[in-house]
């Protein structure tokens, strides 16, 4: 009897959690498929009359959301490639070499994990501004590459599992350190790179604070600030805002459905370093 009760309680709690999670999302989808009059006339829980009314999506896409995707991709690719090279180079130097100052460098990276990015932004802004990068996509790229301690951590952890005999064999064949790095280390770091691309990628895609501070040109806005700006002119047209929101969520939803397992793994290893 108690078993039956706890069994029921278990599923009831899961269903309640699922409803709480999905209901706000579902209503956004409903709203995005309604016409303007329909949105005002029907209740939020009423499904749309025509499930294939994509007019709002077309409008949202043409009013900046499309351009925002292009901007996000530009920043995304440059920042990810940079992060991978920087993280892997750091891991290579720290794991494979013993040199004067190694301990100090390790401590610098360790200590930096304690400083949350939002706290120093007032001062970082002055540096980016001083470099003449305010308003440029390079500001975002530089900040995404430079302040990413978590991926350096993941690379350093992973480096140890790559056998040293591999680089020694290459060294005997006459390969220099750059060659070893590019041909032995980087290819063997692939699983770690996948983790970093996932965590970092989702982070860059969703980042709001940095583009909000550094990008003022409407043509350069990435997805999150574009969505934020989108709210302004369409403040009363919720069906359009709903479509903008769904457009932002779709890529992440697809990524999640295809890479579920890797995403979970990435976040457990990323969050716990």
């Amino acid at each position, binding site marked *: 009897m108690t078993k039956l009760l706890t069994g029921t309680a278990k599923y009831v709690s899961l269903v309640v959690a699922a409803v709480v999670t999905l209901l*706000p999302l579902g209503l956004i989808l409903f709203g995005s498929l309604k016409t303007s009059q329909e949105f005002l006339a029907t209740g939020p829980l009423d499904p749309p009359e025509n499930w294939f009314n994509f007019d709002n999506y077309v409008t949202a896409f043409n009013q900046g959301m499309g351009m925002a995707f292009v901007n996000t991709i530009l920043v995304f690719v440059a920042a990810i490639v940079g992060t991978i090279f920087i993280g892997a180079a*750091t891991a290579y130097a720290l794991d494979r070499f013993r040199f004067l100052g190694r301990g100090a460098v390790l401590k610098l990276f360790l200590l930096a994990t304690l400083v949350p990015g939002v706290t120093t932004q007032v001062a970082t802004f002055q540096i980016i501004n001083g470099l003449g990068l305010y308003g440029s996509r390079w500001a975002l790229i530089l900040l995404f590459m430079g302040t990413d301690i978590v991926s350096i951590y993941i690379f350093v952890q992973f480096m140890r599992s790559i056998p040293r005999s591999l680089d020694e064999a290459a060294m005997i064949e006459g390969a220099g350190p750059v060659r070893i790095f590019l*041909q032995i280390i980087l290819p*063997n770091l692939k699983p770690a790179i996948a983790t970093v691309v996932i965590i970092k990628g989702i982070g860059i895609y969703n980042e*709001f604070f940095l583009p909000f501070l550094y990008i003022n040109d409407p043509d350069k806005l990435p997805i999150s600030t574009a969505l934020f700006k989108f709210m302004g002119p369409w403040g009363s047209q919720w069906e359009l805002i709903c479509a903008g929101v769904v457009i932002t969520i779709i890529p992440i939803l697809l*990524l*999640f459905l295809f890479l579920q397992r890797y995403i979970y793994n990435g976040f457990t290893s990323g969050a716990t370093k």
Partner: protein
Amino acid sequence: MTTAPSGLTGPAAAAERDAVAPTTPRGRRGGGPAGRARKLTPYLFLLIPVGLLLLLTYVPVVNMFWYSFTDWDGLDKTKNLVGFDNYVEVFTDPDNVRVFLVSLYYVVGSFVQMALALYFATLLSFKVRFKNMWKGILFFPYLINGVAIGLIFLNFLKPGGGLDTVLMKAGLDGLIHQWTGDPDIANYTLASVSVWRYTGLTFVMFLGAIQSINSDIYEAAALDGATRWHEFWHIILPSIRPIVGLAFILGISGSLSVFEIPFVMTGGSNGTETFVIRTIWMAFQRNTVGLASAMAVVLLLFVLIVTWMQRKIVPEEEVDLT
């Protein structure tokens, strides 16, 4: 907890090993100079990473301390030293003090979030139907853009919106409020949205930790007649203590640096202004960079103190980098 993700290592890594291009033997570059070059190698590899680390983390931290003792407006060539004036203002201006109190709503929220995450992680680490579906649903909100979440909930909570309609259908009309407009409850609303957003991450961290517990322990406990509750209290909770500790720091430092949800949903009005919103406003709208820096220094010190306390209370195994 310090290993690379196991799911990613298997076949991909093996395939990669075969794919390593054969290195063509080349003539050695000579003896003496090569030795010196080898000594320089690590420095060359670290040049850019350490350069960026200094430029974008350490220089700003040092500058921020320096600015916090000046009356700088962000543009002026001269910065006048004002001693501790900015700090006095941080702790005496009621508008500044209020943002500390606003953080408390989110701190409480992060405890709720940890409790929920712990409950669902424990539940889903045992046999449950459609386990992956529940897991996916709970985790997914964490992947959604913060601005999108703000708009999703503005739509859901607006007068006559989804929540009000549900309450009306359930006959609970009395519970209907101006969810984000009423200063008495706006912070509860926003903290709840934060819980909605972050429970999934905490849940997945806890679940990962629980699943790495050796199953022999449960079997041994079952032989001794342990109930589920005993298992939770004596096996699961002690085993995942480091992760709970980590969630605790992330929760508190996260609560102190809340920005997106209140910024998108209320713009900081109705008493929902947070530390970061206020700092940004001071630095970039009011041009009081000195004062904003003092706010940021206080925020940073808070986070450091919390981290230090957590290390004392829950001694974590040292993060091993060497």
